[in-house]
């Protein structure tokens, strides 16, 4: 029974993925891709990776979907939304099939891995969720660099702004019809989303959730209120937003340096201080992740001006 469910799910994923690559029309491809992300989140839940399922649904389907939809809207304004009729590209198909076949071979050829036994070290990590323990304690380097990658990507996006648009608010101006669906949802959803996002961060210490999933939900709340025209989009030069961007990586770096000076090394956490340290880092990271994701999705400052 469960195998039948998995096969159906995978068939749906492949079908939707296929449609987003080979189907006609860029807009339709974006919609198929959002559906694809949601189906994939179910697949992750089937694999028992609930933290990944949350991240997939919130980040891949949700935020990437908004990002692609907004980009499609901008391209259409620039008359670049259309594409020529698509034809089958045989050499590309051969290469793609070869790579997929190689992965299939690897699946059957490679030995089954053995998971390291974390039951002894997990109590020392300060948190009960092993994924959070890995992200913020055992492999904190990855997470620190990841938060810096987010910042680097944002700087890259801002560098694409035109000089004369630099002082303009970030992103395109949104117009929501008063009394329309977006305007109403922009007032109803945020309180629920705020509670849910903060809960995900707090619960992430011991069960499913964490700074990235919670931060993404908070980012979504922020985006909805901006699109509904309730919250004004910030400008590049506003110091409060800049401070929010660097708060997480900054606190993380400082705690890492403190570990180098007083504990067993850079990013090392002494077991009795680990829980408060992780909660502090996660809280600061959540703020920065949420703000960085919002600014990444709404894009560089744009006055909606002329086409060069």
């Amino acid at each position, binding site marked *: 029974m469960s195998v039948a469910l998995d096969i159906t799910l995978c068939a749906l994923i492949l079908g939707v993925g296929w449609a987003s690559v080979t189907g006609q029309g860029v807009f339709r491809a974006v919609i198929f891709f959002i559906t694809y992300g949601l189906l994939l989140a179910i697949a992750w839940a089937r694999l028992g990776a609930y933290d*990944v399922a949350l991240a997939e649904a919130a980040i891949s389907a949700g935020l990437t979907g908004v990002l692609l939809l907004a980009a499609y809207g901008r391209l259409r304004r620039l008359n670049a939304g259309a594409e020529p009729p698509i034809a089958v590209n045989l050499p590309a198909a051969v290469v793609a099939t070869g790579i997929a076949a190689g992965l*299939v071979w690897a699946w059957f050829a490679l030995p089954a891995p053995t998971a390291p036994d974390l039951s002894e070290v997990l109590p020392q990590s300060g948190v009960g969720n*092993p994924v959070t323990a*890995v992200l913020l304690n055992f492999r904190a380097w990855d997470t620190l660099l990841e938060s810096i990658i987010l910042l680097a990507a944002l700087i890259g996006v801002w560098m694409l702004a035109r000089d004369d648009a630099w002082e303009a608010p970030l992103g395109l101006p949104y117009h929501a019809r008063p009394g329309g669906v977006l305007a109403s949802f922009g007032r109803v959803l945020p309180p629920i989303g705020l509670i849910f996002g903060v809960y995900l961060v707090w619960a992430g210490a011991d069960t499913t959730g964490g700074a990235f999933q919670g931060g993404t939900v908070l980012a979504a709340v922020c985006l909805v209120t901006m699109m509904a025209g309730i919250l004004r989009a910030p400008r590049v030069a506003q110091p409060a937003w800049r401070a929010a961007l660097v708060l997480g990586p900054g606190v993380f770096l400082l705690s890492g340096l403190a570990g180098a000076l007083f504990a067993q090394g850079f990013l090392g956490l002494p077991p009795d201080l680990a829980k408060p340290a992780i909660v502090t880092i996660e809280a600061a990271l959540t703020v920065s992740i949420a703000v960085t994701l919002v600014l990444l999705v709404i894009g560089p400052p744009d006055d909606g001006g002329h086409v060069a």
Partner: protein
Amino acid sequence: MSLSVFALTGAALVGLGVYGLLARAHMLRRVIAFNLIGSGLFLFFGAAAARSTDVDPIPQALIITGIVVALSTSALAVGLVVALARSTGKAYLPDDEGGA
């Protein structure tokens, strides 16, 4: 059994993504195809990790990191696509014009 289904789906998604990246000219399509490659690899990796007897949190943490990095990359790529369209009026590379 189920794990193999997910792994083979992941492999097929990587193939699909590579095809889209090579064969589709519109740059937004290529961003989508790039994301298909990424998520296919994550699925393959996740299925491989689930093969071990105990639940292994390390691959899960790596995949979450990967998902966030993929979003950062997509945001930068989308920004570049819009900048390309703004300066040339097209969302294609010059090589792909007329083709595809």
